[in-house]
């Protein structure tokens, strides 16, 4: 009897996926569970990784693997009308997973739904500061009129997930979409299963079924791929990435930096801000506390982003220069001896404690008085975002910013505009450049972003930019898949090939 029980348990517990060459089910292990599978929340990474473009599709899609730029998805093409509004021509013959057909009314409803006050749809944030009116022209044509005119409206449409017009305004727990997969099982705390649809409009993907598992510990995730309990873990720790056959690093879209609060002395003095930058030996972190493949940052957005400026050079490590600048400032009466506090977030990224301690030591070496304070996410948020506390001392907020969207507008306004929620200063030239760049198109747009990035780095010395981070992934040898900059927020099952 006992043997039978054990045998039964073994059979139940057998988690090895049966693989057929070229197609089959896979298991993916992620660090954080999706607490909600709501399409309008798919811009949040833990939710987007599961449903974005797998269950819920968008009208347009940004190519992060090649250089095709913005690609059609549910919209086949689009153009700007004479009045500045945008017209989208929709794909025909597309069906939602509940069997209903897709047309322009669904797009209109999807947009109205994210703007509704009956929910807290996260994708609404991309449409702040503008008024957008969708107008259905016919079943497969829709116009979006934006005030002020939005040159990147088609790019913004890569963030609007399309739901059927019957979807209630309140959050739903069972997403219905036009994507290649539908949700077939969700056991909260345990697993989510997506199954390929037979009636998908596009190419049939090789992955027939994807089971998502969630483990907070990176070494467990790595072990699961090693033992065959999972086929893919997009994020493992650098320490576990030891097998060249399955593990590799990729540039993710996270940028680590110290946000400077320019409002408080001595950080209101540009020499002091420059001294902060010169005092840090960024290169020394690479291959030690920060993974080798990471890049030294000169902008808040990583290199593949539009307008990233190759002419801006990383601050050299120059402790003598830093000391000199501090002395100059001191001679002019700037209180450079005031203790400055670095506020960092516990477990924000690997080695955050050691990295911040090293930075603290390097800053102290040139004469800064630096306190280091670690706080949890909720408290960190109070330092990071406005309204800032009255009566605060000089503060550097250590933070990590994610932009995999290909355009700096998703970062620049919030981080640097006078009205930006997380901006530590106010500069009319910066505001003007952001406004003009956001409204520009093509080469002009790239040029203005470049100008802004150089101005922020070289003249304003807006913050202490540190590293564009790399992630490590473990991919089973039976799969053919390379994570990209977008993998943090989107993990398209149709891009995964089975050997």
């Amino acid at each position, binding site marked *: 009897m006992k043997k039978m*029980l054990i045998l039964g*348990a*073994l059979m*139940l*517990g057998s*988690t090895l996926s049966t693989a057929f060459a070229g197609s089959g089910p896979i298991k993916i292990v992620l660090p954080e569970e999706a*607490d*909600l599978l*709501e399409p309008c929340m798919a*811009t*949040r990474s833990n939710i987007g990784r599961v449903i974005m473009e797998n269950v819920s599709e968008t009208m347009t899609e940004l190519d992060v693997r090649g250089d095709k730029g913005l690609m059609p998805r549910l919209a086949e093409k689009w153009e700007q009308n004479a009045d500045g509004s945008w017209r989208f021509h929709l794909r025909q013959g597309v069906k939602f997973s509940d069997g209903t057909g897709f047309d322009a009314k669904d797009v209109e409803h999807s947009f109205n739904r994210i703007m509704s*006050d*009956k*929910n*807290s749809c*996260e994708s*609404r*944030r991309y449409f*702040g*500061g503008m008024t957008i009116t969708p107008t259905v022209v016919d079943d497969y044509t829709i116009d979006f009129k934006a005030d002020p005119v939005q040159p990147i409206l088609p790019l913004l449409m890569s963030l609007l997930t399309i739901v059927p017009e019957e979807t209630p305004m*309140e*959050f739903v*727990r069972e997403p219905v979409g036009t994507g290649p997969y539908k949700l077939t099982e969700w056991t*909260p*705390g*345990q697993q989510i299963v997506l199954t390929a649809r037979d009636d998908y409009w596009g190419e049939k993907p090789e992955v027939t079924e994807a089971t998502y*598992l*969630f*483990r*907070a*510990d990176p*070494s*467990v995730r790595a*072990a*699961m791929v*090693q*033992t065959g*309990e999972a086929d893919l873990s997009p994020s493992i720790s650098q320490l576990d990435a030891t097998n060249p056959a399955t593990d590799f690093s990729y540039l993710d879209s996270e940028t680590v930096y110290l946000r400077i609060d320019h409002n408080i002395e001595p950080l209101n003095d540009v020499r002091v801000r420059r001294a902060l930058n010169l005092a840090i030996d960024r290169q020394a972190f690479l291959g030690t506390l920060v993974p080798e493949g990471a890049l030294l940052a000169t902008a808040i957005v990583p290199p593949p982003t539009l307008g990233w400026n190759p002419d801006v050079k990383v601050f050299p490590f120059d402790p003598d220069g830093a000391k000199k600048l501090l002395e100059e400032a001191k001679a002019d009466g700037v209180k450079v001896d005031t203790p400055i506090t670095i506020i960092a977030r516990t477990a924000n990224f690997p080695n955050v404690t050691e990295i911040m301690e090293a930075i603290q030591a390097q800053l102290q070496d040139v004469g800064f008085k630096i306190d280091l304070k670690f706080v*949890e*996410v*909720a*408290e960190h*948020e*109070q330092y*990071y*975002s406005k309204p800032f506390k009255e009566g605060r001392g000089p503060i550097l907020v250590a933070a990590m910013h994610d932009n995999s969207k290909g355009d700096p507008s*998703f970062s620049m306004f*919030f981080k640097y505009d006078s009205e930006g*929620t*997380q901006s530590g200063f106010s500069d009319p030239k910066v505001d003007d450049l952001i406004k003009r760049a956001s409204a520009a198109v093509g080469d002009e747009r790239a040029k203005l972003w470049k100008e802004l990035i150089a101005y922020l780095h070289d003249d304003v010395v807006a913050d202490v930019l540190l590293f564009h981070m790399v992630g490590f992934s473990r991919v089973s040898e039976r799969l053919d898949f390379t994570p990209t900059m977008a993998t943090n927020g989107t993990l398209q099952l149709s891009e995964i090939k089975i050997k």
Partner: protein
Amino acid sequence: MIPPPGLSEGAMLKFVRKRAVASLISLVGLIVMVFFLSRLTGDPAALFLPVEASAEMKQQFRELHGLNDPLLVQFAHYVGDVLTGDLGESLRKARPALDVVLEAFTWTLWLAVITMSLVTGAAILVGSLAAFRAGGFFDRLSSIISLIGASVPDFWVAIVAIVVFSVNLAWLPTSGTGSLLHWILPIAVLFIRPFGIIVQVVRGSMIGALSSAYVKTARAKGVKSRSIIFVHALRNAMLPVITVIGDQAASLLNGAVIVETIFGFPGVGKLMIDSILQRDFNVVLAAILVTALAIFLMNLLIDLAYALLDPRIRH
């Protein structure tokens, strides 16, 4: 609190009622404290919404979830809802908070019950045998083992266990749920610390009991060692042991955060930590209510066990 002598049915009810009132008072105090402290130390709107969300979006989020009302009004609403059995909805999961908590608590309860049963059996056996020949080889061995058990960090044991039993030997799944095999590693890891502690308590208490006059009398009468240990001495040595078992079980009922996190076990400990970090107030409060209730019931059982074990308490 020891129940009064003469456990008649009436006295029993009175005792339970008294305990319930005392627990209720502390529970209410706890809820009030958590309610206000959690709301004063973080804004769920800032945590639920992305950092880039506009002030308008945050305002609307607060409006939607009634977080704009004065704290006292929010509290009055909450108390009113709780009295009608409604513990509110999870901000993060858009589901009733009580459902979320009960789902997780069921896993935790099983984990705690199975682990504590195994721990109790094993610790009593090992502790008693060690005490019987105090200072002997078995005693020393069990002391070393229990000392290591009580002091070794569980996250380390958990990771090493996965490397050995799952990765190298491939005997057990690394983590997760789904089969009986998935329970083995989490239970084994959870077993270690309470086992180490309780063995020590059993041993100490048994040494005291074994040197008492009634044991000497029994020995003089020629009673077999086995019945001396397990019939005469053990019962008398159990009172302090039960207290410690209760403490250990209570900490398991609150959730074994580390074990749950590493093994991907969907228990209430990790749920509670995540909900606190995200200021998902309703889930935090529901989790506190549910676990506190469970601990209250367990303490009640322990008090009754005292009475059953010790006739001096009963009569």
